[in-house]
């Protein structure tokens, strides 16, 4: 049992941190792909982060063209862009600040230090781009590790993890959807380009090594979809995220969350008993749109059940 407002802050603290991490990974891949020689799909690759974060329109108002420099500036340290990494880190830190007594001192000091360092980067420039993305990812990893290693197992930990997995599920679904639609775009016919694009998608979800280990072949749409949507073993797959969400919801004290539990288990069961060829046959985009809608609805149900109790 905890204050609803506290739960809300914990949930969004980890959601924003997860969002920053995902964004770093995506930008890292998109930008390096855009820099490949004769990258035909470069423009499309660079559009992806803007489409996924729903900031394409805002970007176009501020920049004449999608260049790697503009994209980096807009998505990394632009405070005018609410979806930028710096804004995510700021929101994460603000939420943590509001509940600093409910997380361990190590967790608070870590997230506060992340913010102080981010402000340094803001003042001095980010320097090497790859280093910057590594830094964002590392800060997120370290925070998660500290949470795992220090906080009492209870509702606070549950809401922290709930935020992480809802955001992660949302991100995986969006990313796969956008990239798949780029790839099925008729303008890209080059097999090599295809290969790079799928590999980039897998890398953006830290799933490339896993893919090679499981499939031992070049990426193809069906096996990529199977891994990222249906595999219970891949930590960023929809199925793995939903499995975690169900387990967390089952642990939270009280019975306010029955509806959220029902929705989560329903979605998990669909994922568990669906096969990849069915998804492809019915249309990957349609399938993912449905998943996204269900994940969003689940977020709403959780919000209603725990975070905004009257």
């Amino acid at each position, binding site marked *: *049992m*905890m*204050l*609803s*407002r*506290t*739960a809300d802050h914990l949930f969004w603290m980890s959601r924003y941190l997860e969002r920053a991490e995902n964004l770093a990974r995506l930008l890292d891949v998109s930008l390096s792909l855009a820099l490949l020689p004769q990258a035909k799909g470069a423009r499309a690759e660079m559009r992806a982060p803007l489409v996924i974060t729903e900031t394409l329109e805002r970007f176009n108002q501020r920049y004449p063209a999608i260049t790697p420099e503009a994209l980096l500036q807009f998505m990394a340290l632009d405070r005018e862009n609410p979806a930028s990494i710096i804004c995510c880190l700021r929101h994460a830190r603000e939420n943590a*600040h*509001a*509940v*600093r*007594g*409910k997380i361990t*001192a190590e967790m*608070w*000091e870590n997230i*506060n*230090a992340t913010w*102080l360092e981010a402000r340094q980067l803001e003042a001095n420039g980010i320097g090497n781009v790859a280093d910057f993305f590594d830094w964002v990812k590392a800060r997120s990893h370290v925070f998660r590790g500290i949470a795992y290693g220090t906080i009492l197992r209870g*509702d606070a930990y549950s*809401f922290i993890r709930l935020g992480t997995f809802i955001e992660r599920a949302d991100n995986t679904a969006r990313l796969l959807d956008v990239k798949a639609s780029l790839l099925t775009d008729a303008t890209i016919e080059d097999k090599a380009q295809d290969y790079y694009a799928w590999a980039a998608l897998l890398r953006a979800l830290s799933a490339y090594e896993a893919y090679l280990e499981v499939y031992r072949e070049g990426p193809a749409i069906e096996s990529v979809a199977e891994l990222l949507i249906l595999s219970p073993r891949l930590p960023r797959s929809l199925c793995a995220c939903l499995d975690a969400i169900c387990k967390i919801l089952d642990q*939270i*004290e*009280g019975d*306010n969350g029955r509806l959220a539990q029902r929705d989560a288990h329903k979605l998990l069961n669909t994922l568990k008993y669906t096969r990849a060829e069915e998804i492809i046959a019915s249309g990957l985009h349609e399938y993912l749109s449905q998943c996204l809608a269900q994940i969003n609805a689940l977020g709403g149900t959780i919000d209603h059940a*725990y*975070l905004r*109790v*009257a």
Partner: protein
Amino acid sequence: MHQIDLPLSAGYDEMLDAAQSVRPHYREFFDWLNAQTPAMLAQRRREAELLFHRVGITFSVHGDESGNERLIPFDTIPRIIPAQEWAHLEAGLRQRTQALNMFLHDIYHDQNILKAKKIPAEQVLVNAQFQAAMCGINLPHQIYAHIAGIDVIRHSDGEYYVLEDNLRVPSGVSYMLENRKMMMRLFPELFGRHAVAPVEHYPSALLSTLRQSSLEDNPTVVVMTPGHFNSAYFEHAFLAQQMGVELVEGRDLFVKDLRVYMRTTAGPKQVDVIYRRLDDVFLDPLVLRADSMLGVPGLLAAYRAGGVVLANAIGTGVADDKSIYPYVPDMIRFYLDEEPLLRNVPTWQCRHQDELGHVLTHLDELVVKEVHGAGGYGMLIGPKASRAEIEEFRERLKANPANYIAQPTLSLSTCPTFVDEGIAPRHLDLRPFVLSGNTVRIVPGGLARVALQKGSLVVNSSQGGGTKDAWILEA
């Protein structure tokens, strides 16, 4: 050997006596200090600053538009107080707080002290801090100020004086605890060489006091904060965490059938004791300030009906008001039939015509304060003020004499302190915290506040003051 600037002549220095010899209780520290290199000490000070930033022990300053969070400067030379001095201080604080609580109970009930004409009735009853709504309300154990912060200074005569009683929402205790933690981290060896009385149990003493303030067997206690934009938010969060209780804002609470509940993930949960860290006027928008979003509608009705305990009680401000301060020694005599152990600073009340006359002719020697002022704002320090400032204050005084009191300019004692030029004496005070439940609890220590400007007597952090760790040596 470090260059230590000598104390100001005629002043009292905590480390050095009039002959410039080190006082016995500072001997050990002084020897240690001399064995350290300046480079090492400077490095430790930088470390401390870094750590305070990382831990986020910061406060926001009123009127600072940029919303930047600032550190309160921390000085690594402790204020050391020998055991027998502390024993005297502790007994005096206990006595004083007891009398103040009895006074509050009395004026909200029979008003015996007013009937006995020890204090002019109008000074209490028309005081803006007097809450008529508290009249006749019975509080558990008749405790009003569960948490008191009493500001004590040492004058050049070597005696301790009480400068001010803080009975509303005194703050600063988190700095007492964090400063100790920092000193132990930076200089662990010092604690092997001194028997410093521990302060770490303050949160548990606070929780016991708060639990005793309720008649429930197993009361639910919460800390109530105005929110994370408040300048003392760090302390609110810190105390809630250290006590293992919820930190709530007004919007987390609601009142139903004269009981207070908090909104939780498992539904409403009743709250029995609220350690509230916001002023009376913000508590209940239905009764007090309607425009305030910080409070809880209906809280006052629930409180008056005994449905919840507030710590501190509503209406304690009438006892720590500077116009009531001169009467505290009389309160001690009246309620306890004892002589005060701690001295009061002589105070002229400008509301009295003859005293006003004295004040107006001695403005260049006196400190003049607003009756309801706090934080070092709105005061005149005669000897440090320009002629124009004095004249301007004279007009304000004449226009509203009852709003002011005046005191002699005390020479607060000094303590060697790290400053840009090296180590130099700086004026300081001490705020120990007194907890009143079934028993009175005083953790041996307090917040030592130090004025970092040379010669300055204003120790408030809002005016650029710093803090030190305060060591009470065990006998």
